[in-house]
């Protein structure tokens, strides 16, 4: 199985395959997409294919060259990683020296630059010339999760393939192929991962999502009835938990579903139905008929949660943030 193992990037794969089979590969590629979107897998497959000794449908992934490339010991396969927080000009100078020789074993020399957007300004500039007119037989593959942070001059010199987020159907396919999740849990994973295959796989290997969802629903219920003092206790409890981010994400999904419902859209996440039977309490009502919460409130909550999601990545006072969130949920702030 070569390129087929990548799901959802049919266009890119078709283009790569065609240029491979017609021998019209160009000298610089840029694969971009968020972390976990599959850039690296794609790049490795492509690098293997460029030097694969099998005639049919490269990469075969079994010939010596393919295996060498995969383990990173192919003499014509160069990788550049950020040193610390960035890729420095010295690293590139060093690399460039070796790039001007002919390939030793394979047909092409392949240079894979990880985190290309982390090149310092001088480093990126020093790459420009070789990126525009490299020696024959040299192929650059740049990987970047933030292509907008690259110099426009770098982007314009390479063939830019942006990996697209996966559609829910493709995600389902991926998860079915990769793991043995229950259907309900799969729905949650798909909703949480937002089209990012790497994230979905990470989530599904971690597991326990259904339990988290239950907890969150219980939390929601208790929040509505608790007195103010208890809310602060709950906030302290939650902010100490490791899976805070996950709880926030789940809350967001619940509120979004409520909002969509209020707007008249039937939520597409079926987990609610399944959950209903599973847990034996009237969860559907809790999620769908929260009792006349108006759209403005729900919309505001979604916004708050999205903001909080971002803030949690920075070093904020979690307890305070959760307290504020709970108060917001009660409509007090």
């Amino acid at each position, binding site marked *: 199985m070569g390129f087929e193992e990548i799901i959802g990037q049919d*266009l890119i794969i*078709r*283009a*790569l395959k*065609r240029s491979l089979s017609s*021998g*019209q*590969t*160009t*000298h610089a590629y840029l694969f971009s997409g968020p972390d976990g979107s599959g850039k690296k897998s794609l790049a490795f497959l492509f690098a293997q294919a460029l030097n694969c000794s099998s005639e049919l449908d490269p990469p075969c992934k079994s010939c010596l060259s393919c295996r060498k490339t995969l383990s990173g010991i192919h003499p014509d396969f160069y990788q550049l990683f950020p040193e610390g927080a960035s890729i420095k000009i010295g690293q590139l100078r060093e690399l*460039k020296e070796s790039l001007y020789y002919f390939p030793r074993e394979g047909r092409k020399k392949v240079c894979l630059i990880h985190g290309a957007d982390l090149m310092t300004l*001088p480093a990126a*500039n*020093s790459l*420009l*010339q*070789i990126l*525009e*007119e490299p020696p*024959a037989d040299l192929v650059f593959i740049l990987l970047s999760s*933030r292509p*907008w942070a690259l110099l*426009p*001059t770098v982007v*314009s*010199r390479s*063939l*830019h*393939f*942006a990996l*697209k*987020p*996966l*559609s*829910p*159907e*493709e995600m389902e396919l991926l998860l079915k192929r990769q793991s043995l999740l229950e259907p309900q849990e799969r729905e949650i994973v798909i909703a949480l*991962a*937002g089209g990012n295959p790497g*994230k979905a796989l990470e989530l599904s290997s971690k597991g326990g999502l259904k339990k988290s969802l239950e907890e969150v629903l219980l939390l929601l219920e208790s929040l509505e009835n608790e007195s103010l003092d208890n809310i602060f206790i709950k906030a302290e409890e939650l902010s100490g938990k490791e899976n805070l981010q996950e709880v926030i994400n789940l809350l*967001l999904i619940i509120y*979004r579903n409520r909002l*969509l419902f*209020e*707007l*008249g*859209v039937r939520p*597409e996440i079926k987990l609610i139905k399944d959950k209903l039977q599973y847990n034996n309490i009237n969860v559907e009502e809790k999620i769908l008929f929260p009792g*006349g919460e*108006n*759209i403005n409130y729900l*919309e*505001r909550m*979604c*916004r708050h949660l*999205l903001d909080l*999601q*971002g803030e949690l990545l920075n070093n904020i006072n979690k307890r305070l943030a959760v307290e504020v969130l709970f108060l917001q949920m009660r409509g*007090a*702030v």
Partner: protein
Amino acid sequence: MSTRSPENKPYRALYRSWRPQFFSEVVGQEHVVRTLQNALAAGRVAHAYLFCGLRGTGKTTMAKLLAKALNCLEGINPEPCGRCRSCQEVMDGRNMDVLEIDAASNRGIDEIRDLRDKARYAAAQNRFKVYIIDEVHMLTNEAFNALLKILEEPPPGVVFILATTEVYKLPLTVVSRCQRFDFHLLEGKQVVGRLQEVARGMNFSVEEETLYLLARQAEGSMRDALGLLEQCRAYGGEKVSYSEALEILGLTAPEAIYNLLQAIVEGDNLSGLAAINEVVSKGKDLQRFLQEMTLYLRRLVLLQSGSDEEKTLQDVPGLKPYLLRHKDKFNDLVLLEMLEILQGLSGKLRNSSQPSFLLELAFLRLVRVYRFRDYLSPEALLSRLEELEEKLQSAGLEGLNAGTGAKSQASGKEKPAAGPERAAAAVDDSVPGEILPPADGKAPAGEETASGLGKAAAPEGDPGLLEGETHSPAGSSGKVGFEEPEREAEREPEREVDLEQLREIWHNKLLPEIKKQRKHNIYALLQDGRPFSCKKGVFTICLPQGYSFHKGRIESTRNKKYIESLLKYLLGYAVDLRVILQEKPEETGNWFGSQEENTREENPREEITREVNAEKSTAGKNAQGKSSLEESEQEINKKEKTKGKITNRHSLRSGYKHNPLNESGAGYGAGGTQISGDNDYFIREMLELFDGKLIEAGSNELKSREFWSFSIDSVTEETDE
């Protein structure tokens, strides 16, 4: 002209294999080509050139061309021959005397010293020694300074060509020593022309519309455009269609954008969310979708501002029919507001793990902005207000002179707004009553608002329903439906709470609780009122005379629901909230100035409650506030029977009737001046609130939304009947 065939060489990227080899092949940059060719023809070649411009505009190409022309064996001509040994060598990049230096890799002073030393030697085989220093902006400061001397007076036969994308990083001393040429971004048409040439040369069939798409994505850079063309060819092989190209570039079809905007225009949440869902489920990059949408709106702005239709739309043939259909649907203010929202979104989208949620929320906000498109400018709102005021005044409204005494107490932003708003709310109350003039005067205004707000205005004009309607056209109707019976069931109609208890709850629980929950706006509305009665599941609040604005606000769905929920919490069972107005002013003019007054006025109320309980006995000692309160109480009784809002207003109206007719002559003049003074303050306050910041993200939004509901509700409430 294109005589080279890329086939016999190893495959090269299009932008390399199709690099122009003659000046005549260069697309655009006529000003540079003409100047250089004239200089070549006259044999007056400068010793240092500086080419600057954005990526893919032809700097390196031009530098190579110039080098070729200077060293052509056929002599210095406006066009290099392209056949001689020297020209061939330059093309292959192996001419000894044309030195391409990558300043980004050789940026130190040592490299420049080396260059300076070697430049002293004459050219080996050719007329000129040409140094092409690319990315020259990356040289260090010292290196630049080391270059200055030789750049000013180079040895004979040396020509420097500096090329850079960032000319502002160069020291002025360097710039002033060179002949500077600025390369412009290419126009869509020029790019398309070149792409057609290339496509033909490669036997690659592609429609013009698709090429325009590529050119647009390339944003004026030829190298980008050729890269995209290459991408299309890698995918399509022999030919590529428009829809395939969209797919390859990760773009959404124009229909998707049209559909989304159409949903915004129609205020149709469902189809808008469906459009977003469609984009997401196809796995499109939302960032790109956003860019496309921004571009679409930008064109609309251009069309709005009256720029030439032909020119604006020439490079977006695919969008043209859609744009023309939307042209008259937006005004420039709403477009700018929408663009701003989208702009703010694009930053967030990058870091979000659930970008589709963000897009959905933004959509909801866009719908809201669009709905209020006619009120986005302070002027529009002001003129609307003025219009209303005129009508009110010309209608000779009697409610205007009321409430002058109480004004100083109201706090918060409601205070300045109170004048006209109060008047407006008074009109609202009067509508179904016998007094016709105010209703007459207001009828045309109502029509206008109805058309202006579109579907937003509810037909019956019930303020509660109206608010639900403005915020949630899709959801509210269902909601109202299933909430009503529930409330009915919970009610305990038999219970009655005595006044002492009520006051206790009011002062010690309700108001502090509201304050604690930081609902200052509601606190401000209630602080001058007092509990009147609580029986048969109806909690009645009495407000001082002239507080009809406060009454209106308290009765708005949201506030009412909030207060009711609090009361439910405090009383232990659900109640309906009613608000009544005191008819005559207190003689002190101060409703709740001090405790002392509080105690004093208990008398009349107790009186009245007793009175009412005894079914209208006439024992009034305090003739002052009594008659009106009695009216109000009557009203409540009546209401309990008929459960109709209209009668409520009706009877209130009849209460009004005594009052203004009694003292209209004296009061009116004073009321008039009061209004105009108030008016200025009100307008100033309003402008401050507006000041272009109506719809904002985050916490400010709350404030602005409150403001919205306050301003729009009150405008519609009082006009839509």
